[in-house]
């Protein structure tokens, strides 16, 4: 561990630290002196990785761009460089790795798109988030069933039967999850088709639909986690 401070540059300072020339936001290297630029301002993960703002991504193109940029930024290649360049290399690599990790996964990609298009996030930070309206029935039924299973477990019911009940309770939830995946794919395709042509509010509606699906999807994942915890509890009780 080290206590070296990572110096902060104010975000509006968009100059090359090496030669002082002005630097456009989405450039990685100074157009004037070709040294690596500090990560002061930056656009978004898509533009950073040289990709259009589309939800369908060719995984090979993504990987290729990632490898190419890694070769340009990685600290291993800046061992003999100036401290300013080394810092810039560290910052850009970190951002690049974040970008790659996010864009590699559809749900994360959608989250990022929502963020850069100005919508609120679908990941809710607070516990006890509101149940998405479309899921009310399922959530209610599942919570009831989980409560009963818990009580039964505590009064010493047969573990195998309990697991069977859990599996049965899980089936509609899994089905919902599959539905979400399909809807996500559909909406993603719609966004890509609309990206250049459609009007702003049309695109906005697509984004909001995407957000709704994501909210539900995240909620479902929490439910599944709860089911799995219960299943683990039953196993522990046995042993």
């Amino acid at each position, binding site marked *: *561990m*080290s*206590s*070296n*401070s*990572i*110096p*902060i540059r*104010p975000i509006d300072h968009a100059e090359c630290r090496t030669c002082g020339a002005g630097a456009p936001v989405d450039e990685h290297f100074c157009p004037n002196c070709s040294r690596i630029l500090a990560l002061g301002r930056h656009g978004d993960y898509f533009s950073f990785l040289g990709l259009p703002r589309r939800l369908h991504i060719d995984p090979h193109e993504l*990987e290729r761009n990632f*490898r190419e940029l*890694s*070769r340009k930024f*990685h*600290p*291993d*290649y800046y*061992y*003999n460089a100036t401290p300013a360049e080394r810092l810039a290399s*560290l*910052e850009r*690599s*970190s*951002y690049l*790795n*974040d970008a*790659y*990790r996010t864009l590699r996964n559809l749900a994360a990609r959608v989250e990022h798109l929502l963020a850069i298009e100005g919508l609120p996030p679908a990941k809710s930070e607070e516990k006890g988030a509101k149940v998405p309206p479309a899921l009310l029935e399922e959530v209610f039924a599942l919570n009831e069933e989980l409560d009963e299973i818990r009580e039964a477990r505590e009064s010493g019911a047969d573990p195998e039967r309990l697991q069977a009940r859990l599996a049965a309770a899980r089936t509609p939830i899994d089905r919902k999850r599959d539905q979400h995946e399909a809807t996500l794919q559909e909406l993603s395709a719609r966004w890509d088709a609309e990206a250049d042509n459609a009007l702003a509010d049309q695109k906005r509606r697509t984004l909001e639909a995407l957000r709704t699906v994501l909210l539900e999807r995240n909620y479902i994942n929490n439910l599944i986690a709860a089911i799995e915890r219960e299943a683990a509890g039953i196993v522990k009780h046995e042993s």
Partner: protein
Amino acid sequence: MSKVVGIDLGTTNSLVAYVGPNGPEVLRDGSGDALVPSVVSISDDGTMFVGREAQRQLLTAPGRAVYSVKRFMGRGIDDVQDEAALLPFRVGGEPGGVVRIGIGDREFTPPEISAFVLRELKQRAEQFFQEQGEFDFEVDRAVITVPAYFNDAQRTATRDAGRLAGLEVLRIISEPTAASLAYGLDKKNRGTIAVYDLGGGTFDISILKVEDGVFEVLATSGDTHLGGDDFDNLLIQLVLRDLELSGHVPAPELVQAVRKAAIQAKLDLSEHEDAEIRVGPSTALPAGYRRHISRAEFEALISPLVERTMAPVRQALADAGLLPKDIDEAVLVGGSTRIPLVRRTVAGLFGRAPHSDLNPDEVVALGAAVQADILVSGRREMLLLDVTPLSLGIETMGGVVSKIILRNSTIPASGREMFTTGVDNQTAVDVHVLQGERELAQDCRSLAQFKLRGIPPMPAGLPRIEVRFQIDANGILSVAARELRTGIEQTIEVKPSYGLTDQEVERMLIESFEHATADFEARLLIDARNEAESVVTATEKHLRRHDFAEIEQDLLPGELQRVDEALQMLKDAIAGTDREAIQQRTHALYHATQHLAEVTMNRSIREALAGKNVKDV
């Protein structure tokens, strides 16, 4: 420019390598040995020994020799209590603090002991470059490897050790990743590799994707508390039980003798179906001890431990989103992978014979050398993209961990978290940083306590303190903080949980200079002993020749007796610490055997000319 090297600082053995004109190679000593046992001893008179010599001291003065120190790096006494019981040296320290190892009346921390080993490797490298005729033969920069699963404290301890040894540590890299670099050289590889690395004290599994010269780690897992040492301990316990000695603490010399015999048997069982654990007679054991052990029995004994390696493998595959059949190549690293059961298990899991074309003991050092070369040469053909093995988080209200950087994130990686104050005019905030996957702080590994000072006084809840976490390419964390309303940068006080503060490292550096002279003398003594031993070996080889009876006829009267006397005198000297005596008697023996050597040589030449094979005689 001074030379750079790659160093494998292992639990059992260490190596140093460099990239020469013919590619990477390990550096060997006079007898061609690449391995330096990671053992350090200090005799009564303060002379320090490192390597083979120290290993010998384990048998005669076990309380003064230290081994497997890697298992203590970046750890506290509570973590290592169990293993400490089986060790002949004193292990202590305060709870929550760094481990302290006692030798005689001196105390050392694990980084200091490791630094002695590193210094030995540094000197070996410098000697090599000097002999090569290099003008600038100093070695002060190195890449040092660590297990992929080493946490921040363990990595920092390794870097501290490098610093104490006078080395600028260019990079800390993971052992499996280093191994893959060494393998990647001669094959233009493209595909998915699983590196199974089982060494003396640690186990790592890394899944990598190799494409276009980029080695990208997809996932890594392991057990920093599992290795060949544990197999040895099972055998040792077996023997001690046999001797009905467990339950009361046997003499350390005996335990060490049993350990040496057990290790030999383990090595034999990799080559043969049967072996014998053989302990010679001693005061503690007048009759000595012999026990037959079959490979089957050994495998039954170690099989639960080998099975324990499967869980991290499955975890890593799951994290990478792959099945065993998706793996194109499996690579074995580490001495313990020579064990047939280990090989079978890995082959069985991946459905293919694993690679071990490169020497599993040397491959990590070779990879480290390659990485060192990349750093200083600026060549961009190969690139390592490693990951952080453990999630990084901070402790929040209620003792829960809030994760900031997830495990298997490619490094460098960064994350941020916002803080505020709970009390009016509060000027400092404490942040407890941990590593691990569990939900509660008490179940994770404490890395350090950070105190953020210099917060401008404001009503409670108003300050917006942004804390930035940066994991660098070494996998080591640094932290910075800024209060956003005022733009004021916080000063950060770091209190590492199981490590040394910067001041402590400084103090140790100063102390090490004071001990430098004593250590230099020790070095000369070792060199004298080594030379003496090679002359002894050569002489005994002559004397043991099957045709010696005939050679004897060509010798002068009394010559053989003189040789025997000189031989015995030299052996006596080697057992002592008088360097001059050793050197004198080495020359005496050399001189006494000159004629014998001539006679033997002439004989061989005559036979060769007569077309006869010496063996046929």
